[in-house]
């Protein structure tokens, strides 16, 4: 399994992690060694096997549609890096000139 620089750039963008180009060669090598490890799965025929997404074969529990949490905005926003008037602040996403 070999990864191209282009693949790595695309994965990094999908994961929204900036990666310094200088670390591409070493990172590529590490990721390829992990992919080589997982390629061992290819040796088994799993055509008729039902995928196991979870260790417990139970159905999702249901509960009544009731409000159980009270409004706790102030407390929950204590950790926000940037806030204004009870809102989380992010860089502008709509261009004023458009």
């Amino acid at each position, binding site marked *: 399994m070999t990864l191209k620089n282009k*693949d*790595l750039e*695309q*994965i*990094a*963008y*999908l*994961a*929204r*992690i*900036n*990666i*310094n180009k200088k670390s591409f060669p070493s*990172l590529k090598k*590490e*990721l390829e*060694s*992990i*992919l*080589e*490890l*997982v*390629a*061992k*799965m*290819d040796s*088994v025929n*799993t055509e008729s*096997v*039902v*995928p*196991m*997404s*979870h*260790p*417990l074969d139970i159905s*999702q*529990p249901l*509960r009544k549609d009731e409000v159980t949490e009270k409004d*706790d905005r102030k*407390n*929950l926003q*204590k*950790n*926000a*890096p*940037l806030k204004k008037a009870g809102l*989380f602040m*992010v*860089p*502008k*996403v709509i261009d004023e000139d458009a």
Partner: protein
Amino acid sequence: MEEFYKLSIKEKLKGLKESAFSSLELTESYLQRIKKVDKKINSFITVLEDKAIESARESDKRYKEGSALPLDGIPIAHKDIFCTEGILTTCGSKMLSNFVSPYSSTVVKNFSANGSVILGKTNMDEFAMGSSNETSYFGAVNNPWKRNYVPGGSSGGSAACVSAGLASGATATDTGGSIRQPAALCGLTGIKPTYGRVSRYGMIAFASSLDQGGVLTKSAEDAAYMLKAMSGHDPRDSTSLNVDVPDFVDEINEDIKGLRIGLPKQFFSMNLPNYVEKSIDESIKIFEKLGAQVEDVDLPHIDLSLPIYYVIAPAECSANLSRYDGVKFGYRCEDPNNLDDLYMRTREEGFGAEVKRRILIGTYALSAGYYDAYYLKAQKCRRLVADDFSKAFKSVDFILSPTAPDTSFSLGDKTSDPVEMYKQDIFTIPANLAGLPGISFPCGEHQGLPLGVQLVADNLNESKLLRMAHYFQLNTDWHEAWPEIE
């Protein structure tokens, strides 16, 4: 008393009940020991001196009033993955290095409701990703048995602190071996319960279908006390099991005669160091002497466990860790140019190398065109491993193996090769894939470093695991050794 830390939880509870000493004395002796010893091992990220003394006083009051709780006044530590209201909760990451949790996890609440005193929050691999505690943003942890050796991971701080006598026991979590492997490397007892036995509410998520909370203690009996306090159904965790919790403490003395131990030939045909093989052979002999039956079992797909894990765990981690975006809480990069720049630099600067590697692998495995080849394939192989266990448990009660392939290793020894590090968990990962309970306990040493043996049982059989370890410990003294650290 100078050596409070050497008392078992049972002995501490007896002393407190009989007023031989107070929780304040007990707690202060631990706090003093932390001050003296922890600079050598770095097992705590946060020490809660004032809060600990305050809760010790409350415990003493309850003892006086005759209203003591089951673990009243017992000083413990929590892995810094469990949210604690009003207290820094970092998960070993720069991303959460400023995060003061607005709520407490169910595990933390359960311990508080049982009267435990919280001494502090322990160091760990970043977001529980690692097997040596070297990925922590707060620095590596030293193994109390030998300086410059790793304590194992990811619950390395919890293991080191209990092993050094800095807490009666500590909470921990296990996604692929993060309780059992450090237990082995630090000479402790560590139990990972059945998936769903312990609530994951407020336990910071890494790989949700594998993560499970548990404990690290000196002995199986101590573990029984702690596991009893932390287990139970929680409506706030939709995967929490709605089943009765047995009285692990009461049941620990029940007989183990006639119980059957399976030895998977796949594990015993590996090239392990002779001192590891010897310690396992001797453990098997002890169990036979105690009346257990031993037979070979076949787990034909077990060698797929590591490959399966390194698709499923990164895939789930890439989804879980997408929440760290620099907007609602945690680290945020400076002067972002636009929203993408905010996300991308926050995550570049806030996450360490191993976390980024796993997010990238997981993103790749889930991306368009690769989903069937990696994620779906891994889920199918996971079923094969789980079925192997189900078949084996028709003829045996336990699967026995070494916990880790070797003793602890030097700091830096495996950091340059991720796959080499991943092999640390080769014996522990299968139980997580199948959701099964597993326990590790000390069974020997090599050149001053502890060795551990692991038992895995069928679902909900924690009581049986604790009993086996307890009987083993009644007939051996590996678990009673203390490292020379002062």
